[in-house]
């Protein structure tokens, strides 16, 4: 297990619990989306993975080592963290320097640095912005600079906090293919997000946080299936099913909502799945 979280509880200084007995494990190479509404504890959880926060009780282990026994510098070799707000991590005068900062601190050789930076800039679509000042870029582009600067550190675990914020159509496609590329390299990606549309398209496992607790943990397919059956086809609400099914305060993908609106109790999230379901439910389609 690259990540092992056991009974993690975290309370703010004033005693308000942000995380309450969170337990789950992630195997190397998995792509996991941690989803939940604002205030569910997603960012607090993510910050524990890089040691910015320390557990009030319970443990977080990365590559078998407890994060509260490691310095942030030591942890930085194992976990790369991309903040929600790019201004939290961009201080250099050019994009290239920002991306080179991490590998330099980790003691990469010049050759390793050059290779890591060239790759990170390419996969984030920033190669031709290498000499630009980060402040002259759009918010979405700055977010990708932050991502590139973390990818260049070549950590086995990459944690992304709300990666889709401010990303346009093309950047989202780029981010999707990047996640595929990271998976092929065997790197583990954990993204914290409230974007279910992005989650169902690019992740294999979904963990739902609700008020600091794990409310659901399973594959995306299982989530969709449980979600579809939680609401009977006639649209009437079954309270028992609603309680046992996945949480319902997240915005479902558009076509999942459309299928529900049409009273289909089928797991649908993509255009292809929607069309095949539509074909089955349409009486004798004329040839043309």
């Amino acid at each position: 297990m690259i990540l092992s979280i056991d009974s993690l509880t975290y309370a703010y200084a004033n005693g308000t619990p942000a995380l309450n007995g969170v337990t789950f494990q992630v195997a190397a190479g998995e792509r996991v989306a941690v989803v939940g509404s604002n205030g569910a504890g997603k960012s607090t959880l993510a910050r524990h993975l890089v040691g910015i926060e320390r557990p009030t009780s319970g443990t977080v282990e990365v590559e078998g080592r407890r994060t509260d026994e490691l310095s942030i510098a030591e942890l930085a070799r194992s976990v790369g963290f991309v903040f929600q707000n790019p201004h939290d991590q961009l201080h250099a005068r050019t994009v290239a320097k920002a991306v080179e900062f991490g590998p330099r601190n980790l003691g990469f050789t010049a050759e390793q640095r050059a290779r890591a930076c060239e790759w990170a800039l390419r996969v984030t679509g920033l190669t031709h912005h290498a000499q630009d000042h980060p402040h002259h870029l759009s918010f979405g582009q700055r977010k990708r600079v932050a991502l590139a600067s973390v990818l260049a550190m070549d950590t086995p675990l990459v944690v992304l906090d709300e990666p889709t914020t401010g990303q346009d159509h093309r950047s989202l496609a780029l981010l999707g293919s990047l996640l595929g590329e990271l998976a092929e390299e065997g790197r583990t990606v954990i993204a914290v997000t409230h974007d279910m549309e992005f989650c169902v398209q690019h992740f294999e496992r979904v963990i739902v946080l609700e008020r600091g607790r794990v409310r659901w943990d399973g594959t995306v397919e299982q989530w969709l299936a449980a979600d579809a059956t939680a609401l009977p086809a006639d649209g009437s609400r079954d309270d028992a099913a609603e309680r046992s099914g996945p949480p319902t305060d997240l915005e479902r993908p558009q076509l999942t909502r459309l299928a529900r609106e049409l009273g289909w109790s089928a797991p649908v999230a993509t255009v292809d799945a929607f069309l095949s379901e539509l074909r089955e439910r349409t009486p004798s389609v004329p040839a043309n």
Partner: protein
Amino acid sequence: MIEFKDFTFTYPTGRPAPALRSITMTVRPGTICGVVGADGSGKTTLAAVVSGVSPHLTGGEFSGSVEVCGRPVAGTPMAELATSVGLVRQDPFSQISGARFTVREELAFGLENLAVERDVMRHRVEHVMADVGLSELADRSPYELSGGQQQRLAIGSVLAMRPAVIVLDEPTSQLDAEGSRRVFGILDALKERGVAVLVMEHRLELLARSADQVVVLEDGAVAADGPTREVLGDPRLPEWGVGPLQYTTAARRAAEHGLWDESRPLPVTLETAADGFHQVTHRIPIPAGDQP
């Protein structure tokens, strides 16, 4: 009212190309205008220009004109503009004054600068705090809030000023579904009060429900400007770097297989998509031999 006439703008630093090119568009009082476009298409610059941030604070060369409430933005001092136009910036953190210790004080900061009477100020601040859902956090430091809460604080700070024109640059980027709907609920209410709302927004579904008009920016120029349903259903959207709604894509693909009634416009909302597809799945079967 916001009125652009053949407006071109170039920043003093960075790339030499104009950030906005020959923009002509109008946002009327009591309407919501959504602006969409790829990264770097000029959305944030457009917001900066309407609020006077550009050219007043950033500098830069321009030609043509932008008028807000009948006053030319470039020729009106910022302090005067601040009473008629409010800007909610994309990054809420950068909007916190840093001069106040609590959410309540932060919301009052703009009004204090305008020397608004104390009772009026108190009343407005409590009202706005409830509108943006921050009443329970009134005594927290703005810096202790989550990104989503800071975003609502930034919106509240602008609402407290009661501007006639409000510009919001990606106001829901850090909000979940519930928070986003709440923000657009606020925009709907502003519209009813006669405010001209200009909102840059990636999530087309929010615009489909609330916006009267949508403008597509591409490389600093207006690629499309029209009624929401027409623009969001336009097949050229991907060419402009904007991802269409899944409802629209599903209907377009379904139409290729005779599974969408082509006399219907392509859907941009859940309701119109459900109506259209319901009709398809409930149509009367046509026996193969009877087809014309």
